[in-house]
Structures are given as structure tokens and as C-alpha cells.
């Protein structure tokens, strides 16, 4: 039992003390038995306060520490480190959350907030009294990292990690690398095309002995934890032999009688059941689309490289960290949304493919296109729909596309039906350039989106224009381009496998946007690129390199110290009924014989401290440090007290 406890109550510069009477809280706890000193401080987290606390610990020989401040998610690590610097075991530190769960939650009720803060601090004091010292558990960390997704973010992270000497498994669900960027030609702000960027990155990882690339591969199971994740990878067959004949394969594509919508070109063209998306695509081998292949055998007749005997494989890998860079899907407009489905209405990604296919004249469905109407924020900033967020990249991407059309074709007229152009930062120059080229900007009211109708073979877009004080303006366009935003992947099963939480916008969520922007609540799993939220290429690269730095710091030493908060069995009272082992999701509990008696034993490095075994034990023989009956029940008594 701790008897020399230091209690520090933070004002948080008013965030707490504006609503909680901090003085009253200190008065209420200062005479509790075992409390050696109680202090209130403007910012407990400030360097000087931290120094004061650690000095107090060593000078006054404190054996327990309570800091009442903000959420432990923010500062538990800070103050447990302070405890350690003062010479205290960090498990003799208890954090009391009186900001997020008191002052802010009850800013409407100062008396109630103060009363609650007193009880919470008192409960923290009884908890620290019962606390014990613990030592971290040291485990080996695998010096390997799984990077999920071989788009530009994933490939860039893989290259960086490989350069740092880490074994990288780069796992891509498609049969080709490059992700969304391979669908782009000219890139804004660069001299290279999307395909060139992809090729460049691929060549770098391809020559690297530290990278193993799996295509057609998907993680279907994850177990273990930080430092030692066990993942199961399902690899679907490509049905092409490793040693293959390129000319014969081209012939095979030619003779394939199956034609399906080409999703690489967003369904504006058709492709065969044996296909590759473009000539220089990597790996430089076509694949067979198993869903649509009829096994007619035509390809086998002309090509010796086809191998239908290839089977699905399951591969088990052990990695120290997982970096998810699984990307986004473009928003798919609904039938009738801004004229979607009435003929010459396409999405921006489709339009980019069309530009790519048309050399000197812009032709769509046999007609030359001159007048183009872009409708912005389709699937983003929705007034009625679920997507309240801005997709960030699209204003610039659209203006850049418009500039491209001016450069590539003659007599193009662009009309931008926007909701306020968001060319942030240096991208402003793109907006300037489009304006100089004579593009016309029309802005609609939030609740009055443009209307698209078909009129005499032309598609008409009509709005009430803010920029000309509400006059009704309409444009007859040869082609309407819906500027579709980014959405989280429709198939986000990988998130379920990894158990990464999603935010309100359904993108994967970081722990803290500013403190830990690439880490997730699952220790050892980092996120990068557009799976975390809409980003342009440079922003994706920054997040990929940041995530690489974070994942690297987990595995680089080859060992990790883990939280010692794990289940403990009381050997005296345990009678082995097996219910704990049944409840354990990690197979950490097994039966052993000790002194002629069957009892449960916990595997220290496998137990994750979830506590699922605690309530199922009929003889109440399992406890967990930090959450023992003594600690929890004494807290309950204090919180209940009047």
C-alpha cells in the first residue's frame, strides 16, 4: 500500500479551471491519508512543471503519483515518463481525466463538474494506493514489415524501408502495381506521367533484394501483435507461367473471344478476359480474369505460357509491423445525379482516360467535343448525402485537366460549375492559368445545385450564379464532366482484418491528427496515403514516408518492450475449468500441472491484457494488474460515496 503520494491538479490554462474549482479539488484531497503533497499547476505538461514533479518524487521520496489533467490518451505517456525520471515505477502513476470527461463535458454545470472532479481524483488516489510496481516484458521484434497496397504510396514506403535494411513484403490485391496513379497520364506539378512515376518506383523496388512483391494477393487473417504479427496472405493465380513468351501472350489476348467492361478505363472501353491494362504495365505479364474467363481454350491454342492448373495459395508471414496504403475509390455517381446516365455525361476519371485516348481531336461517342461543362463536388461536400467532406484534390485536378485540353486540342471552351475553387497553397497558380486561358467560372449556391438536362442533342447545365449576383445562367455543353471525389475503398475488408477504426468520413482513422498522424489504435499498424483521407500525390508521399519512419522505429532495434499489464492466475484457488482458455482470443492460456493439480498458465508474451478471461472464471482466480478487484472495487466505493 502506497503511503507517500503526490497529487498534481492541472488548470490547463483555464481549460479545466474555468469550470472546475481546482482549489476546492486540492482542498478536498490534501488531507487524505497517504497523500504527501497536493499541488495545483497552470500546465502540468509544461517542461518546468514536469521537472518540478520529478524533483518532488525524488526529494520527497514519493511512492505514488496522481496527475489530474486532460485525457490519458494525450498525456499518460508524458506523466508516466515523469514518474520514471523521478525514480518511480511508472505503474505507480495514475492519470485522472478531469478535462475531457469533467470540465469540458460539464462546462454547463460548474458545481457538478467540481464535485465530479473531486471524486475522480479521490478514486485515482485509492487506485494508486493499491498499485504495484511492474517491469516491461521484453520481446523480439521481427525486422520485417508488410506493406499493403502497391500504389505509389505503398511502393514509395516499401522502397524507403528496404533502403533502411528492412525485409519488406509488398502485398497488392490487383495483378498489377501502380494503383490509381497508373490510370493517369500527365501529372500536375511534374514532368513525368503517372505511368512513368509508377514504372520508376517499380524499377526501384524490383531491383531491391529486400523487397518481395506479391500481386493478386490479399491479407485475409492477422494474429499476434506489435513486433510479431502473423499474417495469412491469399494469392490468387495469374494463370501465366513464370517463364513466358511475350509474343504468344499478345496473340492470346487477340484470340480471346470474351469482351467485358474495362474497369481500368472506367468502363468506357472493353477488354478481353486475358488482359493487361497498358503496354508498359508491371509486372510485364498479362493476367486472366477468372470471373469472366469461359475456359474456351482459345488462348491455350496459340500460347504455351498459359497454365490453368495454377492454384490459389495461402502463405503465412511473420512481420514486425504492418503499413496499410490501400488507397481510395473514385465516387460513383448515382443514376440521375447531375444527369448521370443521360448520354454525354462522364466522370473526371473517365474524362482523363478519354483525353489519354484522343490525340489531336477530342472525340466522345463519335462526336467532337468543344464545349465542356465541369460540375464540381460530385460526391463531396454533399448537402443531403453522407459525404460531408471535401475531397481535396479535385479542384486542382479539374483545372489542370482543363489546361491539358487547351494544350492538346483547339477551340476548347471550359465552364466550371463550382462551389468555390479550393486551389490551396501554390496550386493557386493553376487557377490563375485556367483563368488566363479564358475558362469561365460559375458558382452555385450550396442548396441549389446545377441542373443537367438533355436539350436538342446537347446537354444543358443551368444554375443560379453567385458570381453574377444570382442571375440564371445556362450552358449547352458537348460533354458534361462530373468532378467526382474520393471515397474510402468500397471493399474495405482489409480494415476489418486489421481492425483499424474508421472516422466519420469512413476513411481509416489515425490516433491523433497532429501527435500521431500515421499510427492507428492497433499498435504496430500504420496507415499512409488516401486510405486515411483524400490526398494528392505529394501529400500521399509525405504520409507514406512518415508511416515508413514510424514502422521502421518499431522494428529497427529488433526488440520491443511490451506493457506488462497482463492476466495473472492465483495458483491456490484455480481449479482448471478451461473457461478462461476458451475466452482468450489469443490462445495465451493453457493447462499445466503443478503440485499434482491442474491449473491455468498464461503465456506472457502472447497475453495482450484484454481481460476477457477475468469475468468467466468461476472461482475468481484471475486478476490483472491495474485492474485488480482491489483497485476497481475501491474506486467504485469512492465514486459511489456521497
Amino acid at each position, binding site marked *: 500500500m502506497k503511503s507517500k503520494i503526490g497529487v498534481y491538479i492541472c488548470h490547463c490554462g483555464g481549460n479545466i479551471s474555468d469550470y472546475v474549482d481546482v482549489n476546492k479539488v486540492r482542498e478536498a484531497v490534501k488531507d487524505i491519508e497517504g497523500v504527501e503533497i497536493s499541488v495545483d499547476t497552470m500546465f502540468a505538461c509544461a517542461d518546468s512543471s514536469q521537472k518540478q514533479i520529478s524533483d518532488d518524487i525524488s526529494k520527497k521520496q514519493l511512492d505514488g503519483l496522481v496527475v489530474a489533467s486532460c*485525457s*490519458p*490518451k494525450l498525456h499518460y505517456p508524458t506523466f508516466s515518463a515523469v514518474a520514471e525520471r523521478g525514480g518511480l515505477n511508472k505503474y505507480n502513476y495514475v492519470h485522472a*481525466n478531469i*478535462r*475531457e*470527461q*469533467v*470540465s*469540458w*463535458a*460539464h*462546462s*454547463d*454545470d*460548474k*458545481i*457538478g*463538474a467540481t*464535485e*465530479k472532479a473531486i*471524486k*475522480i481524483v479521490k*478514486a485515482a488516489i485509492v487506485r494508486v494506493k493499491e498499485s504495484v510496481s511492474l517491469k516491461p516484458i521484453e520481446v523480439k521484434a521481427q525486422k520485417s514489415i508488410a506493406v499493403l497496397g502497391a500504389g505509389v504510396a505503398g511502393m514509395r514506403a516499401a522502397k524507403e524501408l528496404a533502403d533502411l535494411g528492412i525485409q519488406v513484403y509488398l502485398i497488392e490485391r490487383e495483378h498489377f502495381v501502380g494503383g490509381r496513379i497508373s490510370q493517369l497520364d500527365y501529372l500536375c506539378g511534374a514532368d513525368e506521367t503517372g505511368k512513368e512515376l509508377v514504372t520508376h518506383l517499380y524499377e526501384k523496388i524490383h531491383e531491391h533484394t529486400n523487397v518481395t512483391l506479391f500481386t493478386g494477393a490479399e491479407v485475409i487473417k492477422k494474429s499476434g501483435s506489435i513486433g510479431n504479427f502473423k499474417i495469412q496472405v491469399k494469392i490468387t493465380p495469374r494463370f501465366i507461367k513464370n517463364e513466358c513468351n511475350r509474343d504468344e501472350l499478345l496473340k492470346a489476348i487477340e484470340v480471346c473471344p470474351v469482351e467485358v467492361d474495362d474497369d481500368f478505363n472506367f468502363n468506357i472501353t472493353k477488354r478481353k478476359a486475358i488482359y493487361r491494362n497498358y503496354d508498359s504495365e508491371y509486372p510485364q505479364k498479362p493476367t486472366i480474369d477468372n470471373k469472366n474467363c469461359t475456359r474456351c481454350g482459345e488462348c491455350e491454342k496459340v500460347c504455351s505460357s498459359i497454365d490453368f492448373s495454377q492454384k490459389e495459395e495461402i502463405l503465412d508471414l511473420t512481420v514486425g509491423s504492418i503499413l496499410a496504403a490501400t488507397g481510395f475509390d473514385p465516387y460513383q455517381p448515382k443514376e440521375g445525379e447531375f444527369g448521370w446516365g443521360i448520354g454525354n455525361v462522364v466522370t473526371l476519371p473517365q474524362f482523363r482516360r478519354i483525353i489519354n485516348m484522343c490525340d489531336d481531336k477530342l472525340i466522345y461517342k463519335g462526336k467532337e467535343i468543344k464545349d465542356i461543362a465541369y460540375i464540381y463536388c460530385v460526391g463531396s461536400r454533399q448537402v443531403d448525402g453522407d459525404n460531408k467532406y471535401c475531397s481535396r484534390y479535385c479542384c486542382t485536378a479539374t483545372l489542370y485537366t482543363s489546361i491539358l485540353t487547351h494544350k492538346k486540342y483547339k477551340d476548347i471552351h471550359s465552364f466550371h460549375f463550382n462551389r468555390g475553387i479550393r486551389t490551396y497553397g501554390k496550386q493557386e497558380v493553376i487557377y490563375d492559368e485556367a483563368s488566363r486561358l479564358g475558362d469561365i467560372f460559375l458558382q452555385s449556391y450550396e442548396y441549389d445545385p446545377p441542373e443537367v438536362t438533355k436539350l436538342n442533342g446537347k446537354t444543358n447545365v443551368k444554375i443560379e450564379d453567385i458570381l453574377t449576383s444570382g442571375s440564371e445562367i445556362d450552358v449547352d455543353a458537348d460533354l458534361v464532366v462530373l468532378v467526382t471525389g474520393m471515397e474510402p475503398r468500397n471493399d474495405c475488408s482489409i480494415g476489418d482484418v486489421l*481492425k483499424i*477504426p474508421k*472516422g*466519420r468520413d469512413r476513411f481509416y*482513422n489515425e490516433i491523433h491528427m497532429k501527435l500521431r498522424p500515421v499510427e492507428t*489504435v*492497433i499498435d504496430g499498424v500504420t496507415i499512409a496515403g488516401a486510405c486515411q483521407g483524400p490526398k494528392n500525390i505529394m501529400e500521399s508521399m509525405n504520409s507514406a514516408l512518415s508511416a515508413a519512419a514510424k514502422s521502421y522505429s518499431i522494428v529497427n532495434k529488433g526488440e520491443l518492450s511490451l506493457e506488462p*499489464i497482463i492476466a495473472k492466475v492465483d495458483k491456490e484457488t484455480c481449479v482448471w475449468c478451461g473457461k478462461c482458455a476458451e*475466452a482468450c*482470443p*489469443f490462445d495465451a492460456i493453457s493447462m499445466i500441472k503443478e503440485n499434482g493439480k491442474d491449473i491455468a498458465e498464461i503465456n506472457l508474451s502472447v497475453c*495482450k*491484457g*484484454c*481481460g*476477457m478471461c*477475468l*469475468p468467466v472464471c468461476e472461482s*475468481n482466480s484471475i486478476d*490483472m494488474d491495474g*485492474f485488480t*478487484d482491489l483497485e*476497481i*472495487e475501491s*474506486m*467504485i*466505493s469512492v*465514486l*459511489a*460515496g*456521497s
Partner: protein
Amino acid sequence: MNISANNDLPKILVFSTEKISDPAVDMAGLLKLHYPPRVYTIPIPCSSAVKPRWILRAFEQGFDGVFIAADGTDCPYGESCTDKTGAIVQRTQEMLKEKGIDAAKLRMAAICSVCSEAFVKQMKTFTEYLVKQKTN
């Protein structure tokens, strides 16, 4: 407005979870979504770790209600969590009935890491329910 001046306001003990529901409770504060101040939270690693004896203890000591802010399907420790927490609640409710305590004074709902509005709503309706029980 000082609601707590009313000493009859019921006391609720919430078991939240460190990684999932406690962040939602934090966010309720961050967004200044107010709820009755006599709601006290004990964060634990997982909602399937709540021992029935802790719940019984809470009622013995004077709590009017106990709420388990469960991980639900977001549980970082496995999909079985929802069922396991459900089983704990069911078992404890039977124990409560035996003791003559209204089983509805123990509630559980899945609170995801951004479900702060749902949490606040739960706290408000639960308080209302407990007030009604008290006055009856």
C-alpha cells in the same frame, strides 16, 4: 444552470474501454456535448473484462445504474467481444433479479470511438429512466 444542485440526480457508473468507447466519451467533452455530471467512468481494456462482482459492488455502494459502453464489433481483441459482453450482462442481470434489483438498471450498448453523440443520448435517456424509477 446547475443541474447537480438536485441531490436526487441518479449516479451512473460507466465501464468504458481504453481504445474504443473512452475516446468517444472524451470526444463528447471535446465537442461540449453535455450530459449529467453524475456519470462516472472507469476505463478498462475491453468491455468483455467486466466482472459481474464489480457491477454488484457498484449497486451495493449506491450507484443507481451501471452502463457498459461496449467495444462491439470494433473491439481490437476480436470479434467475439460483442457476444462475450452480452453474456456478462445477461448473467449479471439474472444475479440482480435474484437480489431484487431492477435488471434494467444495468445497460449496455456498443459505443464506437466516434459515437460521442450516441453516448450522450444513452446517458440522458438512462438518467431519465433512473429518475422515473426513483420517484415511483
